[in-house]
């Protein structure tokens, strides 16, 4: 039995194999030049192990008494103090919110504000280590802003608390375009890391809510609620959950100095 091989067919197959080999060799440098790992999105976790750790507990020592706060007191807004019964800083008060009367005795809390002291003319609440005063119903208290921003800035320019109404926030959430009619912001990117560092206010309408809450042209909003903005999702989380917050703290850079603007939402 003889095996007949067509020499021209063999020649053709050999040429195809040579082309395939050349193509294979041509692709080889790509294996060395191209990256062998892709890019996946990773969530940034920040764990502060020592956040709730007290050294005194580890050595069974008695913790030092908490320092008395020397911070200025602010008036609690949007509530009306209708009646007071006090005896030696203890007592019962009647407050009115949206036409509803609520009774509180010392030690009780309302929307996170703990009633700690009742005096003949005012009630003192405590929240997050700060004291808030509520006086017997005043004619001039309109419910939106307690004292003017300028007055608060004079008391303590580093910490300013402003009241915002939930309905104003809802209005801007429903009419998103109105935000940009009253304020313009520009993202700030670190040229080295190419990551977000904040948002610069390039224009603000002073008569709008954004002007009233203390934002000024040139301010750089670098964080909120004690968290520095590192990603756009940080900002988006606050936007998506804004109706769940009772208070918001904005950290801004004004003239290269860090400043906190605090907002109570009613």
């Amino acid at each position, binding site marked *: 039995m003889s095996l007949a091989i067509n020499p021209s067919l063999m020649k053709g197959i050999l*040429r*195809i194999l040579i*082309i*395939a080999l*050349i*193509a*294979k060799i*041509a*692709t080889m440098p*790509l*294996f060395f030049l*191209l*990256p*062998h*790992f*892709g*890019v*996946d*999105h990773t969530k940034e976790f920040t764990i502060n192990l020592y956040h709730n750790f007290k050294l005194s507990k580890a050595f069974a020592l008695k913790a030092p008494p908490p320092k008395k706060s020397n911070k200025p007191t602010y008036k609690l807004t949007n509530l009306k103090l209708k009646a007071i019964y006090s005896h030696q800083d203890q007592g019962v008060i009647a407050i009115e919110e949206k036409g509803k009367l609520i009774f509180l005795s010392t030690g009780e809390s309302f929307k996170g504000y703990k009633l700690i002291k009742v005096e003949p003319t005012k009630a003192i609440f405590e929240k997050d280590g700060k004291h808030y005063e509520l006086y017997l119903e005043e004619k001039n208290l309109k419910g939106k802003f307690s004292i003017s921003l300028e007055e608060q800035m004079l008391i303590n320019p580093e910490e300013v608390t402003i009241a915002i109404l939930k309905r104003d926030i809802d209005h801007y*959430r429903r009419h*998103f*375009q109105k935000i940009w009619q009253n304020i313009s912001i520009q993202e700030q990117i670190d040229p080295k890391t*190419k990551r*977000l560092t904040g948002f610069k206010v390039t224009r603000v309408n002073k008569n709008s809510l954004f002007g009233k809450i203390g934002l000024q042209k040139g301010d750089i909003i670098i964080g909120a609620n004690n968290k520095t903005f590192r*990603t*756009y*999702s940080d900002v*988006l989380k606050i*936007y*998506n959950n804004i109706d769940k917050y009772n208070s918001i703290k904005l950290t801004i850079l004004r003239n290269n100095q860090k400043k906190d603007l605090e907002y109570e939402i009613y």
Partner: protein
Amino acid sequence: MKRVSVWLVYIVLFALFFLWFSPKKLLYYKLEHILHQQQIILSDETIYDNFFSFDVEDAKLFVKDIEVGQITKASLYPELFINTLVIKNFNTNKNISLLPKIEIRKLIFFYTPFYPIKIFIKGEASDGEIKGSIELMKRKGFIDIASKKPLPLKKTKEGYYRYEFSY
């Protein structure tokens, strides 16, 4: 003439073998690194390396760290002279109220080295046609989207909502 046609066959064969042997997965990783510089990330995807194409399935698209949507399937056909990227079913993230609720059924990016300054975009969304282009020299582009619902984008004379971008 016969000699020329034989050489043409060799070139085509070389191109086909080159595509077959080329590390398409590594090319995709390179593309991911380039996109990452523009803060665009495709994550959690499944990769299929085929003979002449490359498929990515169930990818989450992150732009500037925000999950903007999910791609059911994207196929890349790097055929040297006719390069196409076909994206099937892109759904925007419904949890983000800022994003327009658009369902993109098909989006095709077409590039040929015979017209190297432009990438053409064509597609189909839930409410109609999508068209656009990317000008590679000017580093900018636009996508026109037909939508019955109003979108927070500029409206063109033809009635499309235009998304313009630069990079």
